[in-house]
């Protein structure tokens, strides 16, 4: 296992290196230089321009700038926002929990609903339930995230008035930031309505982000379980007189889980991309909205950091998924 982990980590090095190169290159490729963007419309004489370029270290040769950039990264320094002049890593840390909360809740909802529907469809194969679930899954998988969000807002927020349209919690609750996870922070708030408010704010964005993932997980769970149900060991388990529920849920599901975990790992990328769209629709103050706003404001250090962080989290999550295989299926451990 350790050998596998080390080997896997070693293959990541060139990828991570390449990602930093892309993030570094991005800011040099965009039209206009950072000083001009920072000063905006204000006219600059050549002297001030040169002085600011020097202060930002932008007059040095590219390779030195890159080394500086890498050195900064090692110390957790992601540069400075051109607009707010704040440290990018501070801004990131302030916003990250919002995205993490949204993504984790959405993923949990997608896994629970997707697997439940997939198992139900597999057990009632060919029935109306199976066809209905698979039909819904295909629709859910094809759903444009941004449109689905607008439709839900139209129905539940505007039409029925059940949920708020945007934000993370009602403004009247002065939530003290402890973890950054609103559901936890609001639960610690003395007024009981705070948690309820936080939950209602989270409901629609999480539902939107969960939809496509639940659909893919349902499809994969169904087909993987159907594959497994035909195996000999399933017949032996039944022959031993185990209850049908136990046979399916313990013997069947455990073996059917590997493709499902793979597909969940593959969905992480679309979860990140979906978070960008979902946060934009619901004005959810997370990394995705930060990134899009930064592009609009040409705040390139923020864009650079957003891209770098998304790529790194994607890489790390894929690594975790790879390691999970070994946990779920001991047969894989030795072979790799």
């Amino acid at each position: 296992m350790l050998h596998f982990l080390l080997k896997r980590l070693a293959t990541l090095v060139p990828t991570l290196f390449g990602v930093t190169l892309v993030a570094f290159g991005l800011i040099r490729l965009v039209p206009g230089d950072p000083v001009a963007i920072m000063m905006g419309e204000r006219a600059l004489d050549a002297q001030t321009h040169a002085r600011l370029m020097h202060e930002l270290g932008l007059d040095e040769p590219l390779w030195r700038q890159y080394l500086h950039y890498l050195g900064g990264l090692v110390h957790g320094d992601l540069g400075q926002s051109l607009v707010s002049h704040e440290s990018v890593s501070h801004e990131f840390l302030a916003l990250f929990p919002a995205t993490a909360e949204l993504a984790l809740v959405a993923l949990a909802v997608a896994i629970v609903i997707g697997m439940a529907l997939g198992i139900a469809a597999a057990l009632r194969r060919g029935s109306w339930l199976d066809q209905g679930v698979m039909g819904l899954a295909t629709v859910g998988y094809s759903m444009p995230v941004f449109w689905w969000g607008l439709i839900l807002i139209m129905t539940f927020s505007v039409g029925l008035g059940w949920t708020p349209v945007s934000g993370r919690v009602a403004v009247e609750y002065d939530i003290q930031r402890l973890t950054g996870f609103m559901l936890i922070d609001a639960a610690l708030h003395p007024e009981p309505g705070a948690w309820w408010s936080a939950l209602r704010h989270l409901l629609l964005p999480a539902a939107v982000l969960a939809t496509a993932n639940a659909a893919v997980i349902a499809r994969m769970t169904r087909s993987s379980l159907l594959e497994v149900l035909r195996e000999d060991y399933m017949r032996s388990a039944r022959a031993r007189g185990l209850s049908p529920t136990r046979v399916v849920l313990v013997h069947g599901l455990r073996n059917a889980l590997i493709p499902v975990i793979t597909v969940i790992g593959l969905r992480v990328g679309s979860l990140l991309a979906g978070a960008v769209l979902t946060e934009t629709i619901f004005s959810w103050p997370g990394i995705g909205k930060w990134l899009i706003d930064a592009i609009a404001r040409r705040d390139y250090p923020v864009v650079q950091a957003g891209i770098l962080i998304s790529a790194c989290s994607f890489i790390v999550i894929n690594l975790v998924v790879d390691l999970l295989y070994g946990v779920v299926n001991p047969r894989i451990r030795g072979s790799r």
Partner: protein
Amino acid sequence: MTGATRSSEAMEEPADRLRPMPGPWGEAAQAFAANRGALVAFLVFAALALAALFAPWIAPHDPVHQYRLQMLLPPAWMAGGDARFLLGTDELGRDLLSRLLHGGRVSLGIGLASVVMSLLPGVLLGLLAAFHPRWLSPAVMRVMDVMLALPGLLLAICVITVLGPGLMNTVIAIAIGSLPEYVRLTRAAALAELGKDYVTATRVAGASTLRLMFSAVLPNCLAPLIVQASLGFSSAILEAAGLGFLGLGVQAPTPEWGTMLSSARDYIVRAPWVVTLPGLAILASVLSVNLIGDGLRDALDPRLKRVA
């Protein structure tokens, strides 16, 4: 259904007995036609594509002309609707039906163009990597690893940041975003074929590398590529619309389904049809292409066949 009836007919009519066996492609076409969902999806998509193709001739109005006196009109069958504007008008008084039809040209066109623009270089790079395992393959695959480290939409956003928004740049951004999938797929399929006897035989017979690549190996890698291309087409439509929605794609006033949605957001209460209709158009095309892709996969790639 078609496959079964045809073979029984062939047995009844002796004149047909000499009809040649269907080739692998004919077989796949029969399997596809037997899949009812895929067939219906194909018809729906064909209708959408034709409507988009002939938009300039069938659209009742100019898609960018603003009828200032008829802003946010509801569809004709609703109270207050106007028969001249079948699906109503948007916030600037533009005919929604005409915009949807012309938008189809743009949205489906972007999808098609970006698939072609990533498929061709992707296949080429994948084949080159498979044929040059020593130095080219690791170099190409490392670059692809880096590109795969960013989800498609984020990579596209990256490219848009550098190039700026716009129609052509949307195509380029999406094409770059989906390139790694094709490279990996082609390389894997080509590597599997390279070990087979017929490739060795062709090589021994003196075929050049180019001939080996394109006329021996490539045709045998086509099945997974076609499936991937159809799924890539649907995700390209979604990504283009997503970029448009974020304001990073096709710019107003060009009608594009995602851009239309983004400008309609503010009228969600007053004019829900302005939001509903472009989204339905996106959903209908993505859904039909996905069903076609599923049908193609079942027909072309028996290994990946869904457990039915």
